């Protein structure tokens, strides 16, 4: 069957703002700057864009955030336009919505854009409390007991250690790999190389997670432009194919995750706190792409914490359940290793400006496939995976991208 090129979705443009501490800006301006960078990268006529997806913002949010951004960009006619409320999971989710719109012939070009000023706009030390008050997690049955975001993931990490013997050193190897890659990325927020000992010596946040097991807090914005292969053929960049996409969401409440409450028996038997529904998203994404984890040249894995990335090595199928700790050892996840991850530095070392943080993984995957990454380029990169994760590894979206 020959696919109609007007119905094949590709990424034709990516863009970002500087990241780190950007004191003289705001989330709206960052959205506009990132969007303009992606539009310029694609070289597409802005008037052709008829889809817009945002993910809201911690600062300057609005119940109709997508409309505010559309007005600031002058994108008048949208046949798909919404604010994704899937948090860290938003952007591979957004890619799938864009893909569906292109495949259905309902849009010609869909812009995904996010930006936030978490570092500059929230006083140091107030971020965890502010996020708690945001109310994403149960204000009645979880946060009164003093748990915060690193605490949720610490409970996940402690359980993984208990079940499989995973060690703090193995978790630290992920932070070390990300920092090594960030040291090769002039745009990254943290570039001084670190060792496993540095991670273990950093201050404890919530056992077993140290400060360097936790992602950064940043300002910044990112954007991705999805269009049809037909449109992209007339644009300058090499089109990057959305070869396979998948998503799966369970719950935020950790007690429900531990017991897969409400799940049909076949799902409940195979899922709990350390066996996430990313398996289902991965099955869809790899299945649609017709590739296996063994075919992947680079994996840009959402890394809110080291444990977040570690779990995905198992649930995406790079190794068996329980073996990710050993898999992460020995430099396998570093450039030159068997499965380089987070070649931009990830959220652990490049930047984590809130909900837009996961879009950087997609931007980097696209640049790796285009061969634009200079000293951090993965040789002969043909298949990339980018993932987005939210809420104690309970909600997932997975993208397999190819040249």
């Amino acid at each position, binding site marked *: 069957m020959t696919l109609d090129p007007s119905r094949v979705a590709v990424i034709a443009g990516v863009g970002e703002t500087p990241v780190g501490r950007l004191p003289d800006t705001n989330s709206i301006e960052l959205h506009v700057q990132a969007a303009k960078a992606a539009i310029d990268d694609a070289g597409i006529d802005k008037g052709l864009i008829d889809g817009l997806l945002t993910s809201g913002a911690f600062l300057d949010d609005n119940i109709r955030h997508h409309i505010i951004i559309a007005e600031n960009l002058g994108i008048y006619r949208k046949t798909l336009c919404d604010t994704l409320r899937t948090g860290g999971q938003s952007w591979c989710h957004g890619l799938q919505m864009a893909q569906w719109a292109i495949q259905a012939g309902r849009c010609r070009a869909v812009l995904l854009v996010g930006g936030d000023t978490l570092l500059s706009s929230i006083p140091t030390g107030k971020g*965890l*409390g502010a996020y*708690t*008050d945001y109310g994403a997690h*149960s*204000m*009645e*049955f*979880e*946060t*009164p*007991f*003093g*748990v*915060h975001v*690193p*605490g949720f993931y*610490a*409970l*996940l990490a*402690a*359980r993984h250690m*208990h079940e499989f013997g995973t060690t703090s050193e193995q978790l630290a190897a992920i932070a070390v790999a990300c920092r090594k890659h960030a040291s090769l990325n002039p745009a990254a927020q943290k570039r001084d190389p670190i060792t496993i000992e540095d991670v273990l010596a950093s*201050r*404890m*946040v*919530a*056992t*077993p*997670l140290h400060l360097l097991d936790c992602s950064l807090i940043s300002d910044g914005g990112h954007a991705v432009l999805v269009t049809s292969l037909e449109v992209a053929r007339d644009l300058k960049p090499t089109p990057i194919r959305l070869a396979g996409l998948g998503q799966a969401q369970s719950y935020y*409440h*950790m*007690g*429900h995750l*531990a*017991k897969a*409450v*409400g799940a049909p028996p076949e799902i409940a038997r195979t899922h709990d*706190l350390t066996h996430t529904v990313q398996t289902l998203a991965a099955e869809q994404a790899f299945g649609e792409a017709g590739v296996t984890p063994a075919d992947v040249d680079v994996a840009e894995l959402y890394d809110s914490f080291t444990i977040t990335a570690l779990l995905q090595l198992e649930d995406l199928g790079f190794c068996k359940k329980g073996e990710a700790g050993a898999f992460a050892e020995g430099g396998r996840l570093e450039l030159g290793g068997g499965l380089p991850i987070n070649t931009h530095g990830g959220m652990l070392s490049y930047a984590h400006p809130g909900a837009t943080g996961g879009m950087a993984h997609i931007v980097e995957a696209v640049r790796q496939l285009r061969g634009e990454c200079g000293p951090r380029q993965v040789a002969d990169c043909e298949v990339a995976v980018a993932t987005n994760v939210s809420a104690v590894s309970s909600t997932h979206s997975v993208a397999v991208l190819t040249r």
Partner: protein
Amino acid sequence: MSRTFPRPTKISAPFWAACHDRVFQMQRCGACTRFVWFPMYICPHCASTDLHWTALSGDGTVYSRSLVIDPVSAASAPPGPLLVALIELDEGPVMMSNVIGDGAEDVAIGDRVRVVFQQVSDDVTLPVFERVIAEA
């Protein structure tokens, strides 16, 4: 410190009122006999509305645990670190809580615990847990 106090709702009020009276109860489904946590309008297992408040043993096992160094939102406003745990109750549900008392910081996954009640304001009493040391 931005202490977060539970705000009882229509469905959860009986749970919090019972905690205030030092009674540990959850809803149990009359159709599938399973316990339900947190309080709900229908059984999440079988969708029955035949839910009845039922006393629990108060016994459970630590499913996971973390010593949170700066527990910014804790209703109990501890002056230092707080042991946050997921407790698997003997009746089935897993709930978030704290382990308090002697040796709380050393509690391990698999350790046995028993509910105790900790009043944190005029209106709110939290169900928390203490280690149960097996008789020699």
